[in-house]
């Protein structure tokens, strides 16, 4: 099994509050994992740790062979841009850039912008006719597809999606789910935080959090 992500005793405290409490979890390449749990269970904190947007108070987090636990802020930024593709619930596109430029933005901070590559990534999301549209000219579903294209453009080791269908209607939710199914079929590693049980059902494995701990789910990867 090719572990792309390993957590052991991962803990994050905010003062006296322990938001993530000693999580041990491994995820193998190509796996689709849904992280679920009620509000306050530590999903968002865990997501931030996995995205290298935050540093653990204790424990170890190895991403694609890099132990990120000891990295400083700048080093975590480098890991984030090299190895992680982020998909947000609220899309977070730059309003004054076109769909294509929003995708190129990730290239810009990663290495080099490439218009054609950005256009191809959007075409894979069914957005080839919307390249020059600004976010305000796109529907929610279209914005989320731009966001996914941006997350994929640098070929990250993992895709981290935070409630990717949380702001979408049923029709767009289905489109986005289809995209994730395709990505999974292509062998992408997807970690998705969601409240939505239907979304959870799509994943190969569900990790349920409760009070910052993994509750009930078997942390061992089920897919080789």
């Amino acid at each position, binding site marked *: 099994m090719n572990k792309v992500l390993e957590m052991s005793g991962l803990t994050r405290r905010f003062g006296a509050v322990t938001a993530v409490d000693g999580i041990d979890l491994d995820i193998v390449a190509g796996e689709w994992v849904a992280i679920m749990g009620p509000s306050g269970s530590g999903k*968002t904190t865990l997501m*931030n740790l996995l*995205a290298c*947007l*935050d540093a653990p108070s204790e424990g170890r987090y190895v991403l694609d062979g890099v132990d990120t636990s000891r990295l400083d*802020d*700048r080093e975590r*930024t*480098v890991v*984030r*841009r*090299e190895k992680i593709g*982020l998909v*947000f*619930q*609220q899309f*977070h596109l*730059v*309003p*004054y*850039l076109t769909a294509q*430029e929003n995708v*190129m*933005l*990730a290239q*810009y*901070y*990663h*290495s*080099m*912008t*490439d218009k054609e590559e950005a256009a191809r990534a959007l075409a894979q999301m069914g957005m080839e006719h919307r390249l020059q549209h600004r976010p305000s000219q796109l529907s929610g579903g279209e914005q989320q597809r731009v966001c996914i294209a*941006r997350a994929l453009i640098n070929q990250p080791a993992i895709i981290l999606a*935070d*409630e990717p269908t*949380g702001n979408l209607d049923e029709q767009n939710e289905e489109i986005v789910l289809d995209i994730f199914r395709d990505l999974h079929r292509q062998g992408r590693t997807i970690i998705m935080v969601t409240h939505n049980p239907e979304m959870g059902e799509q994943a190969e494995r569900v990790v349920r959090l409760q009070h910052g701990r993994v509750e009930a789910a078997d942390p061992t990867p089920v897919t080789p």
Partner: protein
Amino acid sequence: MAAISLQQRQNLRMFLRILLQSLRIRKSRVLIAFCSILIGAAVVFALLSLYFDISIKMSRELRAYGANFFVGAAETGQPTLEADVYRRVLEQIPATRLVGASPYLYGVARLDLGNAVLAGVDFTGLRRLSPFWQVEGKWVAVDFDEEHCMIGRALARNMALKVGDQLRVFKRETGFNQSLTVRGIVETGQAEDDQIFVNLSLAQKILGQPGRINHAMLSILSRDFDTDALAARLKEQLPGVTAAPLRKVSYSEGKILEKIKGLMALVAVIILAATTFCVMTTLVAMVVERTREIALLKSLGAENRSIVRQFLIETGCISLAGIAGGMLVGFLLAQLLGQAVFGAAISFRIAVVPLTLTVSLVAALLAAIMPVRMALRIAPATVLKGE
């Protein structure tokens, strides 16, 4: 090498796109920052231009307040000097430095209704020496005019004289007895108000002092000119002569210049502080407005130095445009001030350009410190979390 240059070119294009779009969609805030910097740079440019010219211009202005150099007979010698001494003194002073000068010969003469102090002067020089004199009628314009005189306001009142009236002047000792026409009545608020003024040559005849003067008063542009050295040189070259700058006047000139320059510096500092504050608040507002965008850029892998670079270049672009406009406006402002205060144009000095650029850029960069720090403190995990 080619790949690097392609990468740099592509990324530069993207950077410029982000920069221009970012400035374009925040037109109103960019305009506020631009105007603030323009005003600051304009004031700095105008005041610096004035600062460089003020010493020359003020020195000329202050010379309107009377003589600042005295030449007279040494205490040990005779009470009067040869008029030729006065000519030799003038030869020692560059023409460009000499604003005005007049010899003086004093005596008492009998007029129609009583005695009065009679002063023999060089009217052309006196007029330049004392431009603040209030004159009703006209100045005696010709050096060899021995038929006209000017009289002080108090004397004219006491003798019920007005411009154009005839006035008889007697001097028993010399047998002088001649009528003069009052060409002008002067008012100075000082001793001159009780005196009668005639050309030096006429005074020498009336008082029986041919070729003699009591003293001479001079108005010299003293900026960058050592009047003490001139006095020493005159004393050495002309025995029986004493010469000295009028300390009180020269000192006051220096003090006034210092105060005006200090005031200008203070105004410039206050305007720059106001500019800095205004730019800072505008940039802070821009950072607050862009919190999500900055958080997103960080989440996409933008390092702090990229964020700093983007902000500084944005601020730099606005600042450079504002400073360029400010210099143009500042030059016009300097001309307005020059005309209003000195009645003269202010010269364009190339040194003012780099000084204004440096001072204004420093103010703009100081203004950017706090907003940039705010931008660096933005935590994407907090800002971008789902709701």
